[in-house]
């Protein structure tokens, strides 16, 4: 239980400091807004066929805004070598991972809560699908993406050019999640009759989430080892 206790302290520390500076969240949300605007240039919002790209746009926002936050989460610990402070403290490496994961995930959810309604509003999208399932897909997709993203951010933080390295590591590894959640979102938003196949996708994403969360938990010791 010590694992969760220290993880929560760490997550609280990160979120509280974010609350004070508001750097990352603001950047993420503004970035999400800009992506939406750029997409409105690329695909005419007045056109009805544009509705087909909405599921893709949602995940493009989440992925790119998420990358911004992930990049910062371990780099921010390099100032004054606070990472060393965490490493000499009596806690497991898994605790650090879990704490960072909780903080990143919470921030990701905030970005989603702000940007997705904004997207629907701007593209004049009438929500017809199943709302609980939509929430579930967003939740599971972000969970998996942030879980593996936090892990790889810890890995990439060892490099001097970690901002460039992280996307290269993260995107190939998360392809299954991205395929799964985009398909599931598409079905839920536009084609609710086929809900059973959306559920199949959700199961795939859930399986991925579980597998990689466990693998990351086991391997984080080696990443944070000094």
């Amino acid at each position, binding site marked *: 239980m*010590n694992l969760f206790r*220290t993880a929560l*302290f*760490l997550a609280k*520390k990160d979120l*509280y*400091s974010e609350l*004070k*500076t508001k750097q990352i969240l603001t950047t993420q949300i503004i970035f999400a807004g800009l992506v939406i605007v750029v997409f409105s240039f690329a695909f005419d919002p007045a056109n009805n066929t544009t509705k087909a790209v909405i599921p893709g746009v949602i995940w493009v926002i989440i992925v790119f805004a998420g990358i911004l936050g992930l990049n910062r989460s371990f780099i921010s610990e390099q*100032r*004054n*070598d*606070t990472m*060393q*402070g*965490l*490493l*000499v*403290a*009596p*806690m*497991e490496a898994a605790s650090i991972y879990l704490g960072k994961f909780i903080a990143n995930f919470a921030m990701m959810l905030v970005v989603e809560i702000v940007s997705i309604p904004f997207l629907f509003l701007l593209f004049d999208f009438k929500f017809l699908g199943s709302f609980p399932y939509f929430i579930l897909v967003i939740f599971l997709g972000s969970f998996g993406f942030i879980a593996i993203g936090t892990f790889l951010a810890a890995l990439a933080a060892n490099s001097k050019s970690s901002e460039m390295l992280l996307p290269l590591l993260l995107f190939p590894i998360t392809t299954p999640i991205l395929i799964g959640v985009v398909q599931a979102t598409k079905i839920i938003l536009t084609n609710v009759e086929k809900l059973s196949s959306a559920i199949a996708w959700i199961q795939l994403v859930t399986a991925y989430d579980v597998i990689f969360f466990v693998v990351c938990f086991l391997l984080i010791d080696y990443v944070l*080892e*000094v």
Partner: protein
Amino acid sequence: MIDIKNLTKQADNKLILRGVDLRVEKGETVAILGPNGAGKSTLLKVLATLIKPTSGHVLVNGLELKKNHIEIKKLLGYLPHSSLLYDHYSPLENLVFFGNIYGVQEVEQKAIKLVKEVGLSFFLNEPVKNFSRGMIQRIAIARAIVHDPEVLLLDEPHTGLDQGAISILNNVILSMKEKGATTLMVTHDFKQAVEICDRIIIVKNGKIADDFMIENQNLRFVSEKYELQVEGVS
């Protein structure tokens, strides 16, 4: 308290520590002297579990470092060059956070008391980023002792401090010593070393070159020994 046996550390192809044997008893205050690149900081980092040794054994309080790292980390207070503080946090918030991680009871009162001890209670709620080097170092030492460690590992704690800060720092170290804490201190400052420490270790080329006790704050004795070991050979 600390027992190091045949410790080596190799980074890439460079041998930094080549077989260090050291035994430090409980309550001793040890200064580690030596030229740049001798491996002093590396030795300290190995003890602080920040560097994995290539070979050799380290026992702290009779516990093997590799196997019981959580228990050992609870005993250690580590103060490196950098402050390990979060910039936009106030001293209080920093100390409370680290105290929580270490599982300190009644952490808030403890933190306030420590900030008072290092003489910064006026700045209790100011963000650390506005502080001067001396103030940061004082908070940093408070951070290192927030959980009442039994072993203090200090890496050049006196550099860049003014006289007032040095005396506060020394008082803190001495009061820790009275509580029975063991202190290992890497330093270049012979004057401070003889003032606080009762044992001197000279490290050269990744090995312990000399190891002796000092009495009566005999600065000349230390300087002579040091010159004999370090400058005499080269």
